[in-house]
């Protein structure tokens, strides 16, 4: 199931970046280096869900991608830090929202809670201790890259 979920996460992320940010995935031979220059300049957003299944999704994006998300979503070259954070949270919200139907159990559904930014000193995975982990799913785009990890509780 987790391999299927990785594929679903990737497809959901690519579709979201294409439609909301006008970005496109790189082919494997276009990816420069290891594609993981994830340093302190990165930004991390987290969104949780509960209901049919409990869990959350963490998306960590490099600085170039964060800037490009905000520019492309807002149509402005001078996005503020708040706007960049809001834009990444919205991407997390959309990607996660497209994944949780796969956890539906008949009429029971999962509900997404408002996303937020994770501070640099915080381990975003710690709150999901004991849950199933899917990922990281690496998403390489023409404007930057992101890693996505999904956690869920089997019920």
């Amino acid at each position, binding site marked *: 199931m987790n391999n299927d979920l990785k594929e679903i996460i990737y497809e959901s992320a690519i*579709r*979201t970046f*294409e*439609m*909301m940010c006008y970005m496109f995935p790189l082919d494997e031979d276009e990816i420069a280096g290891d594609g993981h220059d994830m340093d302190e300049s990165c930004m991390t957003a987290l969104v949780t869900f509960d209901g049919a299944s409990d869990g959350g999704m963490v998306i960590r994006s490099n600085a170039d991608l964060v800037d490009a998300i*905000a520019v492309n*979503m*807002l*149509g402005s070259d001078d996005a503020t830090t*708040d*706007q960049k954070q*809001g*834009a990444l*949270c*919205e991407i997390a*919200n*959309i*990607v*996660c*929202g*497209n994944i*949780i*139907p796969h956890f*539906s159990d008949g*009429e029971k*559904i999962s*509900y*997404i*809670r*408002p996303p937020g930014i994770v501070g640099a000193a915080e381990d975003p995975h710690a709150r999901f201790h004991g849950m199933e982990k899917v990922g990281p799913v690496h998403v390489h785009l023409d404007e930057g890259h992101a890693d996505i990890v999904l956690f869920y509780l089997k019920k």
Partner: protein
Amino acid sequence: MDELMAKINVLIVDDCSVTREVIARTLRMTGLELGSIYEAPDGKKGLEMLDLQPVHLLFLDINMPVMDGREMLRRIRSHQNGSQIPILIISSESNRRQIRHFEDLNAGFVHKPFTVEQLAGAVRKLTEASHEQ
């Protein structure tokens, strides 16, 4: 059709300011004749805005603090003056049961992520249906 939709005032209710801006920006790209675009961060503020401003089209998020979109939709539809206002729910969630519930309350639904064409199509469909009633 365009004449019918001349200068429509829009209210966008979403707790994320970026999302509100994305919807407003996408709306401007549709070619629709827009009047004022009002914004509110939650259902409670949205209802207050509806009392103060003439709104012809409402965009509504589902998950919001203070008052969520489900409750705001229910209150609008149970109010005599708000029973006919075209409402478009925009959400990344796509549970069939929830969508049927929104449709029962005479609200359209746009799934996120969306394209300009999809949003424009949903708005036209909703406003045409509204004018036919």
